[in-house]
């Protein structure tokens, strides 16, 4: 009885808000469903064929890939560096930890608006352009310039600012689990503090944390929506899959058939990547 009392609301929520929509989406993906969620015209696999040959959908996957190539390694390296630094601090460690963690509590929408309206706006009094002005450089329309693609700088920095602290905490937890005796043994064996210890003790010991950070990061990158939607809007140069699918199915187009097909294709891609990584890194296997 108490089992269902505790689990019930969660299961109900999962059924109503996750499984039912997924199944409904699967059904919709086989129908022509403009402006309706109860379609009647069955089209078989046509929606899937359309999406897989839709150059906009494919280029949105490309946009995601570029984004992941920037954001995943940068987040990994910087959050690890921050964790190492904060872990070394002798005084006010809790203070530094909190300061770096705080941006995680900020909403993506709010942060995007600050980035768009005050830091990276295109006029001369924007923060970034003011700084450029000190060096005599011309202002840049950060979000509107595609050649060179300056828009990546606001897009990547806003996410870095927001998520570094979270991954830093994961790394700090990992660092604190490493037994000090390992370091002592290394010093006894003549290892030099610094790179050598980091390379041969710290990094291997952080393997589980590192893999977790990489995977979580990659999945978060797949889900990128808020900052793109708020910073770029519906423009094809900065349109990751979720923004594209949102515009197809929930924006004014209301083409729920193609949108559902695209969402399921994306789900399959994420599934394949997750399975591949568990083959390669072994993260998520029993006993980890």
């Amino acid at each position, binding site marked *: *009885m108490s089992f269902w009392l505790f689990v019930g609301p969660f299961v109900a929520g999962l059924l109503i808000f996750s499984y039912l929509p997924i199944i409904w989406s699967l059904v919709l993906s086989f129908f022509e469903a403009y402006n*309706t969620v109860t379609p009647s015209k069955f089209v078989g696999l046509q929606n899937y064929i359309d999406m897989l040959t839709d150059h906009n959908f494919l280029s949105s996957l490309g946009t995601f890939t570029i984004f992941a190539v920037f954001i995943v390694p940068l987040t990994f390296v910087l959050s690890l560096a921050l964790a190492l630094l904060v872990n070394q601090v002798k005084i006010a460690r809790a203070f530094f930890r909190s300061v770096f963690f705080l941006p995680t509590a900020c909403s993506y929408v709010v942060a995007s608006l600050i980035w768009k309206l005050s830091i990276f706006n*295109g*006029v001369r009094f924007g923060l970034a352009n003011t700084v450029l002005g000190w060096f005599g450089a011309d202002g840049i*329309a950060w979000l*509107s310039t595609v*050649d060179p693609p300056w828009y990546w700088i606001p897009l990547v920095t806003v996410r870095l600012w927001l998520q570094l602290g979270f991954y830093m905490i994961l790394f700090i937890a990992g660092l604190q689990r490493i037994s000090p005796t390992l370091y002592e043994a290394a010093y006894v064996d003549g290892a030099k503090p610094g790179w050598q210890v980091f390379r041969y003790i710290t990094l291997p010991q952080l393997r589980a944390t590192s893999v977790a950070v990489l995977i979580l990061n990659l999945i978060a990158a797949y889900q990128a929506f808020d900052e793109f939607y708020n910073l770029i809007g519906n423009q094809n140069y900065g349109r990751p899959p979720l923004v594209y699918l949102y515009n197809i199915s929930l924006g*004014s187009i*209301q083409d729920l058939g193609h949108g559902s097909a695209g969402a399921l294709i994306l789900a399959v891609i994420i599934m394949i990547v997750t399975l591949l990584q568990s083959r390669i890194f072994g993260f998520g296997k029993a006993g980890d």
Partner: protein
Amino acid sequence: MPAHVPNAGLTRRDLLKRTGGLAALAAFTAACGGNTGRPSSGGDDGGGAKATLSQWYHQYGETGTQQAATKYAKAYTDANVTIAWTPGDYAAKLSSGLLSNKGPDVFESQLNIGMVKSNQVVALDDIIADVKDDFQPGDLATNTVDGKVYGIRMIVDPQVIFYRKSLLDKAGIKPPETIDDLISAAKELTTNKVKGIFVGNDGGLALGGPALWSSGGDRLTEDHKPGFTDARAAQAFGKLHELYASKSVLLGAPTDWTDPGAINQGLTAMQWIGMWAVPGMQKAFGDDLGVIPFPALDAQGKPAVYSGGWTQFVSAKSANVDAAKKFVKWLWIDKEDFQEDWSLNYGFHIPPRKSLAAKASKLQSGVAAETVKLTADYGHTDDPAWTPKMNTAFNDMLTNVIKKGADPAAEITKAEKTVNDELSRLFG
């Protein structure tokens, strides 16, 4: 009631807990609905048998508009009308609202054939019949599919280029008459503080239609074929890239082109914007304001004005279609004082009724009068057969041409394919 007797394993307390949990879940899911413009209770408080209607608006930028909309709704006595005022992405909220009967009863939008095909709106021929001749042909055509009128035009919003006369005089240039003039004027007006022209933070997607019209083309031809595929159209889109690449276009402004913020703050000398912003701009500049249409592509072309606007519709999913139609007739056909108030007392809009437009004294002088004249001479309204999907393909084409400098002809071919697919889906 045997069916409701709890089974043996269940005590009364357990049952209470369970039902309590369910009630909490139900309350939670109900709360997810958000502001639909409906009263949260049943509605009929003291109203007797009056219908309750929900009327949806997007957020107008001018102060006083929301209060005015509420005032009109309160003044209507045959039904209880509640207002949903939507900041942000109104189109998306409206689209999902129209999927269910939880959406609006009456709403403002622009018609596209998809709304008719999927039975989202009802025909309003019966309420417009008596005054049909009093509407401009374009404002009727943009709301007509297969001979039936589906919406009552509320306001007409011409989009044109407004400019600071003093800045053009100082630079010694005349108001541009061709696109090339416009590009060179933008260049000359650009200083290190002020950019020549502002056409939107997206680099000028709003200019796609006007540039096409100025070349003699149109998005769709009258027999529903793509009308943007010839060499002159490609040339016009190429000019938009030239303008963008001239480094005289304001980009990344804090407010977008629909808001007079950029020109009012002195960030730009010219701005593509609607007539709605005239009161706001006049407050900042007085008479130092001029207006031109989108200039002609060349001697062969003609200037163009986008005659946009908002239209009132009745949702086919409404539980009170007849009451909703009656309300629309009352507000947007019978109540001329409210229509005049809405068109002239906040932003400036042209009243779609000829009789009302003729009386609109605020639009009979200065830059507003010039805009009205330009709209009459060069105005283009939307074709309802142009769907949002076609528009996305069109805008993607423009982004690639304008910002990435892609070959217009190749991009046109890509957009043409999407438009043709849509056309064959809609018209066979």
